[in-house]
């Protein structure tokens, strides 16, 4: 897909790498909008450099004039209280500084309209991967309808080679209030609004982990509704898909924990493929151990933190909608052991 304003990118990049912003942007966990790694973010970056150049120029001109006026026309002690020439206006000057801004606006608008259209009306190729994103208070549900996968909080998508693009097209829905999907290095944000279907697309060109978070205030734990997008090579993505399509591991050693899980309230909210647990209020746990974090990025996925999360979610994410399960130590250990088999 060809995008306008790509010519602004190289000089823009050079300019910015002189500023620490770009330096920070090179790190793998960067969330800088000026470190684009997918076409929508690239297109916006090019446009933003153009807009910054134009507004920067306006700023320099007007700032200089203001500074000049403030310095040159200060009243001096030797003025003797005389009033300066009382000028009421000038039609030519008014015309000039009306026409020029109009022209600037027209140019900026045209540049913008091209990018709006290019991003929003981009056609969807047959090779696109479909993901349905459902926003919840305060976690992300990811469904891959054509692949039969349901997962949460960490999204895996294939890398997209510009020569043979395999973009990911997202459908954005919400189960409760408004949310917003924002991974700055990949694309601009799009909101998830209940009773409405929104769409966006990503075609990241580099393998890696991309971070983001919810960008529309959705309640108490809006701040920790984090996003983790893993852009995988084609082979890795296939491997991940096949692993996700398996039912939950059935390890005889953790039968006790599985029983605790199935007989307490866990199954009301959570689902584990291949078991009786089929709740959809909370994240799908079938492959919990394939994730790097718990609680939509609120904590690292370690044994101790998993235990703490189940025992007292408020210790990690106060105000999250997961209730403290109030299990005794034995049950807690058993459940944790069981969950740790869900790779």
């Amino acid at each position, binding site marked *: 897909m060809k995008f306008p304003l790509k010519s602004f990118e190289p000089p823009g990049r050079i300019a910015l790498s002189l500023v620490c912003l770009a330096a920070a942007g090179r790190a793998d966990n960067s969330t800088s*909008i000026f470190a684009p790694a997918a076409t929508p973010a690239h297109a916006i970056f090019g446009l933003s450099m153009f807009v910054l150049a134009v*507004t920067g120029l306006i700023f320099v001109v007007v700032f200089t004039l203001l500074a000049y006026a403030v310095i040159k026309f200060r009243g001096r002690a030797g003025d003797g209280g005389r*009033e300066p020439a009382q000028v009421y206006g*000038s039609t030519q000057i008014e015309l000039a500084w009306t026409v020029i801004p109009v022209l600037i606006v027209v140019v900026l*608008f045209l540049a913008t309209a091209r990018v709006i259209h290019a991003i929003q009306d981009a056609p969807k190729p047959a090779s696109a991967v479909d993901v349905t994103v459902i926003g919840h208070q305060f976690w992300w549900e990811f469904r891959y309808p054509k692949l039969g996968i349901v997962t949460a909080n960490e999204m895996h998508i294939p890398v997209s080679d510009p020569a043979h693009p395999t973009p990911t097209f997202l459908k954005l829905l919400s189960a*409760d209030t408004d949310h917003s999907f924002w991974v700055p290095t990949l694309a*601009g944000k799009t909101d998830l*609004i209940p009773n409405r279907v929104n769409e966006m697309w990503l075609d990241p060109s580099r393998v890696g982990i991309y971070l983001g978070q919810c960008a529309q205030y959705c*309640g*108490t734990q809006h701040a920790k509704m984090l996003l983790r997008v893993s852009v995988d090579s084609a082979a890795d993505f296939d491997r991940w898909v096949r692993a996700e399509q398996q039912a939950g591991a059935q390890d005889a050693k953790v039968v006790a924990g599985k029983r605790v899980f199935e007989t307490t309230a866990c199954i009301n909210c959570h689902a584990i493929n291949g078991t009786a647990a089929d709740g959809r209020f909370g994240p799908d746990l079938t492959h919990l151990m394939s994730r790097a974090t718990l609680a939509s990025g609120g904590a690292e996925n370690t044994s101790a933190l998993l235990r703490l999360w189940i025992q007292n979610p408020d210790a990690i994410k106060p105000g999250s909608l997961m209730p403290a399960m109030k299990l005794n130590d034995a049950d807690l250990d058993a459940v944790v052991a069981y969950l740790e088999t869900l790779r």
Partner: protein
Amino acid sequence: MSTEVIPIEALQAAGKPWTETLHEWVTTVDHKRLGLLYIVLALLFLVVGGVEALIMRIQLVHAHNTFVSPQVFNRLFTMHGTTMIFFVAMPILFGFANYLVPLMIGARDMAFPRLNAFSFWLSALGGLLLYFSLLGGSGLYGAGNAPDVGWWAYAPLTAKAFSPGHSSDYWTIAVMLSGFGSVGTAINIIATILSMRCPGMHLGRMPLLAWLNLVMSGMVLITVTPLTAAQLMLLVDRYLGGHFFDTQAGGSAVLWMHFFWIFGHPEVYVLILPCFAFISEIVPVFSRKPIFGYPVMVGATICIGFVSMSVWAHHMFTIGMNSYANSFFTITTMAVGIPTGIKIFNWLGTMWGGRIQFKTPMLFCVGFLFQFLIAGLTGIMLASAPFDWQLGNSYFVVAHFHYVIVGGILFALFAAFYYWYPKITGRMLSESLGKLHFWLFVIGFHATFDTMHIPGILGMPRRIYTYEPGRGWDALNLVVSVGTAIQAIAILIFVWNLISSYWKGARAGNDPWDAWTLEWSVASPPPAYNFASIPAVASRRPLWDLKHPEDPDSLYE
């Protein structure tokens, strides 16, 4: 000439019991006293809103801080925004309008003095109700809860399902009351300006302050009311089982957004127009020249009034409107920058060729001009929809609008305080404290709000009580927070100046700035009846004509 007028109150003041004075103030219908009541109300809420901001900035000083809980933080940003917009900015601007408009058009009072008082007390009640939520938010049984839905109160977060208890209702009703007060005052201002100008003051000879308040009031009539309507709908949803914004029943969350922003965007123009008024009155006097391009300034104002009604969905660029809608709102938003820019150029033209006196009011005006320019340019950036898809709902936006509100509106208000305080009290504010206030505030303002743009660019969303380390946001947030402390100190100096100058300031006389509009023809403070006899005017600067009988404006305009 009313320079011969004796300030009668000074003679009667001694020996009156405080209860009688209090009763007079509580039952006053005098526009000057009501103006002051509005201003004092606003200053009290400014301190409250400011403390809310300081607490939030302490919480954000580093990642994973635990100074306040997420619940408290969410209430803080909701209350901060609601307080600052509805109980600081609106009242203080209405307060200045109330005080100045009749004086500047040669009238003795507003058109409807009792409506004036009613509107004030309604607004005050709204403010009280908003803060009563701390006690009564969830009923008096459990802990009180301030509203925590953000000052835009997006649906369906405000539905009973997601906001149980009464905290959202306190937001709704408090703001609705403030809205009724605003509409009442707007009606009053329009009626006053259209029906009570002194002889000779046809509309083309009115001070720009009157024009700007006229257009602002016209806007209030059609922009505050959509919010009132939406709030009525929200109450129907929450208490009568209605479905206006009930997404389960087919209702639309986006409809609330449209209604809110049809109010919310023009509202910021409602706030800025009276500030343009202050700049337009003060810059000429301290440049010693008339305003450059008066007719164009009027035209640009009316233009802004209309065009600003067409831009609202630039707050909704990310909600998934189609490319045509996004393009439309991009161009209208950029277009509204044109008359606004023209105003900046006209102020520049006023200063050009002048003999600028850098007294404190002018310092704040110059600060305004530089800062409003920058704010306008970041606004143009946000107007470009794709750029907004990245920057929207991030700290870049928070930086942009605080740049306008603090760097623009508050600076203009400071200018107005230093300029008109002598007229209101009869004393000059201290110039040295004023300059200290100015420079300290400039340093704090730029430390906070220049820096704040960067976390937005680095991906920091707004309305988050904490953030992740390792994203490069920590040091920046620290600088932002330190700047707020400096601003707080500057404000304390300002408040001290206001209080101490009341007793120790130099006596001002009628016309300390050698200015040209009618309010400077009466005593400082003005008598209750304003003018001994209603003046008649022949130009836009009646006092210039008097002081320069050989070269009156009436020959040129």
